[in-house]
């Protein structure tokens, strides 16, 4: 009985940490997007937008390396894109945490499943596939 209870508390702990991780990821990344957005608007106030035609060749931050280079220049749009990148990595961080917690629970089947999902995402990270 006491062993069972302990396991339950353990499960509950994992759920609370998981929830906190997700919330923190969203709040931090959205704050970065907001700050970048304000800087972007100040610098590009009078510029005319045109999104009528999809022009991927004009995209300045279409890789992780380009985003990090842009951050160094402190451009608003680069900061926004960095915030978006952090947002994209929030659920991925959640998978990594889940792998750890299943490892602690010795549920190796789900450790394996976690790694399979990470591998699938790693394939999409390989930009070559998208070009």
């Amino acid at each position, binding site marked *: 009985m006491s062993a069972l209870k302990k396991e339950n508390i353990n499960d509950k702990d994992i*759920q609370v940490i*998981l*929830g*906190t991780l*997700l*919330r923190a*990821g*969203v709040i931090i*990344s*959205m704050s970065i*997007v*907001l700050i*970048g*957005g304000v800087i*972007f*608007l100040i610098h590009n*106030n*009078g*510029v*005319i*937008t045109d*999104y*009528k*035609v*999809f022009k*991927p*060749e*004009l*995209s300045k*931050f*279409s*890789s992780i390396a380009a985003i990090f280079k842009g951050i160094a220049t402190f451009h*608003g*749009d*680069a900061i*926004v*894109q960095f915030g*978006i990148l952090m*947002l*994209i*990595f*929030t*659920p*991925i961080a*959640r*998978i990594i945490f*889940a792998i750890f917690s299943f490892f602690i629970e010795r*549920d190796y*089947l789900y450790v394996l*499943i*976690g790694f*399979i*999902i990470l591998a*699938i*995402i790693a394939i*999409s*990270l390989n930009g070559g*596939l*998208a*070009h």
Partner: protein
Amino acid sequence: MSVLLFTIIVLLGAFLAGLLGSLTGLGGGVIIIPLLTLALGVDIHYAIGASIVSVIATSSGSAAAYVKEGITNIRIGMFLEIATTVGAISGAIVAVYLNANYIAIIFGCILIFSAIMTLKKKVDHTTLDNTDKWAKFFKLNSSYPDKGVDHAYAVKNVPGGFAMMLFAGTLSGLLGIGSGALKVIAMDNIMRLPFKVSTTTSNFMMGVTAAASAIVYLHRGQIDPGIAMPVCIGVLTGASIGSKVLLRTKTDKLKIVFAVVVTFLALQMIYKGISGL
């Protein structure tokens, strides 16, 4: 249109989309895309890139609350994420090569389907028959707490649910939406999960699914900071307020009105798509 004006309009539109999307259960992504393409003339590729980012934000935000309550079945979620992520990446890659008009037509059809699904009465299919060998092997049978009582449930037809998730993931990657309607079909009707578990688990999965396709979109230049910024801030704010209002309001009438509006938008997207072919 100047950047400032564009940002303000998109911000307001995205706020409304997030609010209505969470009140009706349709999701913010399916509303912001027609808004951007029909009202502002934005190319659908950019609209999809911005929408997928907002899907990650809203689903991760609400999943945080559900996971803490212990209703989400993390094992089912992760097991099915294999299907949705494979689907999402394939969908996102196909979207790159697909003409914008075809995407608009498919989008319109899914929009009508989702609107009908929000109106349909839900039928409880839950079962305690825990004989499914896949469910046993993957330890999917579980229980969830409701008002202090634990309710046990069993999972059926795992391969069927997995296949449906593959399809839901593909559409999510192709159209930049959460495809919650399809995920709930897979879990309620095919796998026989209780509503509370299926909606929260579907939400839990959405973040990872959307992240997988968002990475493809990012590399493809479909995520433009100028559009994605107001869209994700607006949708997230609207959705958080919506989820608080939802607790004390009845939304039956709103759902009907909204389904009509959405169907009208969908028909317009289909019409535009067909006439552009």
